[in-house]
């Protein structure tokens, strides 16, 4: 760590870990409900569990991205954050808004719009919070000694993510219009601007870990984010096939969304080749694992499993089935959860001064969580394909089919248990590092 203010990142990472733990509990509630054990129904009905599960996911990822930015921007700009106090206020208000939203979901206080369940009044608080965050980041960049491509791409991703939250706040009478603009948030986030955030963090990690020349890494970063936007913006059309938005999207969405995996493929090839090329071998092995891991798993989960159901002829049958949940899990895990883990594992030794670069526990956390998640993906996938054949092709009733595929949720819960053990080990390591300290400052000559 080179700047004192980078320590703020620690608390954002800690908040992330806490919310992730809660997210998993609600995941289990839903897994059991699908198996026929909806025992908490009277207190936590399925729709509550689901809203909590997905919103916690989004909030812990955002908290992780913010922590990443607070760590990366001072180092890239060579300037302390302009206000550490404001950053702490922003952290606490983020946590408060998150908690109020989650509690509200248990009392029917929500907007039933998938992924955007946070009610309108709280949306405004989210906006203020994110503006504060962006203010700190942009002011630091402005005052800093240099503005690197890495820091600009990261900041651009965060800024666009904030702007794209707004179309999700407009009220429409028409369900089709509502859905149309809901995708401006959900799709343009995960298949657009969040990839800039991921790319920015990835570039920073590669520069630090492999020691490859910044100019080379940043050149490819531009190519990757270029591919992302060229395919991903018009690729939004893959959500417009069957919601009443017209026929043109069958072609536009089909063609451009089929190109989206290219950006993830480029990210994977880029990461692996920079790793090969790098002469400096950084001692932080675990950070390298998670960095290579995120590049590869995101290509499989988002790129390949996304491609699997993105053509209109396939999506006609898989749209709104468990096949979607299969892809959703591995994509979010590979691209966004793992990049947050990577920056945490890289930053912790630097912030705390404890150099636990490679431990058995850390290795086990990596492998158990990844194998567990792949197992969950397979379970969702088998259930989803069976559902598609029985319900959408043969025409059996929904309930009959769900009874047939119950067993796959047993497998899901077993794999989720393995996954959770991996996450628990990761959190144990996180706690073992202890608090960040100024003694960890590396003063440059």
């Amino acid at each position, binding site marked *: 760590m080179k700047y004192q203010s980078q320590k703020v990142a620690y608390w954002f990472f800690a908040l992330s870990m806490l919310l992730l733990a809660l997210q998993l509990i609600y995941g289990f509630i839903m897994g059991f409900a699908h198996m026929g054990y909806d025992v908490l129904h009277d207190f936590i009905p399925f729709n509550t569990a689901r*809203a909590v599960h997905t919103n916690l996911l989004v909030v812990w990822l955002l908290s992780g991205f913010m922590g990443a930015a607070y760590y990366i921007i001072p180092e890239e700009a060579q300037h302390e954050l302009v206000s550490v106090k404001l950053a702490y206020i922003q952290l606490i208000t983020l946590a408060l808004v998150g908690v109020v939203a989650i509690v509200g979901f248990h009392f029917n206080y929500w907007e*039933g719009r998938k992924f955007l369940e946070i009610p309108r009044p709280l949306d405004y608080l989210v906006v203020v919070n994110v503006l504060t965050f962006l203010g700190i980041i942009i002011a630091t960049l402005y005052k800093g000694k240099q503005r690197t491509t890495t820091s600009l791409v990261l900041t651009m991703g965060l800024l666009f993510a904030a702007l794209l939250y707004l179309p999700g706040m407009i009220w429409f009478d028409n369900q089709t219009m509502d859905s149309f603009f809901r995708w401006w948030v959900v799709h343009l986030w995960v298949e657009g601007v969040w990839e800039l955030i991921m790319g920015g963090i990835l570039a920073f990690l590669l520069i630090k870990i492999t020691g490859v020349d910044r100019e080379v890494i940043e050149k490819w970063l531009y190519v990757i984010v*270029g591919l992302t936007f060229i395919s991903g913006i018009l690729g939004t059309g893959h959500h417009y096939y069957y*919601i009443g*938005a017209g026929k043109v999207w069958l072609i536009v969405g089909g063609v451009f969304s089929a190109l989206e995996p290219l950006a993830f493929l480029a990210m994977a090839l880029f990461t692996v080749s920079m790793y090969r090329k790098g002469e400096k071998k950084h001692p932080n092995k675990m950070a390298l694992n998670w960095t290579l891991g995120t590049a590869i798993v995101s290509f499989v989960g988002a790129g390949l499993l996304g491609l699997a159901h993105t053509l209109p002829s396939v999506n006609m049958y898989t749209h709104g*089935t468990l096949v979607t949940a299969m892809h959703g899990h591995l994509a979010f895990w590979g691209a966004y959860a793992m990049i947050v883990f990577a920056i945490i594992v890289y930053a912790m030794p630097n912030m705390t001064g404890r150099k636990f670069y490679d431990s058995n526990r850390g290795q086990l956390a990596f492998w158990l969580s990844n194998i567990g998640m792949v197992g969950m993906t397979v379970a969702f996938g088998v259930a989803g394909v069976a559902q598609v054949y029985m319900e959408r092709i043969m025409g059996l009733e929904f309930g009959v089919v769900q009874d047939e595929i119950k067993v796959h949720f047993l497998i899901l819960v077993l794999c989720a248990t393995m996954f959770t053990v991996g996450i628990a080990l990761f959190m144990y390591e996180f706690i073992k590092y202890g608090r960040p300290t100024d003694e960890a400052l590396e003063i440059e000559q």
Partner: protein
Amino acid sequence: MLSKSQARTFFLGGTVVSFGVFLWLTWTTIAKEVPKNTHSENLTEEVIRGKVLWEENNCMGCHTIMGEGAYYAPELTKVVERRGEGYIKAALMTTEPWSPRGRKMVAYGFSNAEADDLVVFFEWVGKVDLNGFPAKTEYETKKASNK
């Protein structure tokens, strides 16, 4: 070899062009396609009240509509066609716990008027032109050819 500034031009140029085309397509969609495909002239007050109830209770947290939502309970786009009004209203108005095949639905106990609004909302949704979604199943196709 590609230089960094060429790479930047590729990114900026690609983004501007893609976003421009996207905005143009968005415009034609909301100006022409959506009113036509959704029969927006039929968006009565009842339909809108039904949509508000649909949102306030997060029905999408268990069901899908137009294929969007959760996977715990049935797809409802064509529910009026499939089940009829009586069945739907009974499910919405009951105050007794109801759990077909062990799947528990919240017993909302809606009033008759609220249940009517939701049914009208479903009727409106059922008539939207969804490019053929949900696809006809083998069972329906056979039934049709036996007639």
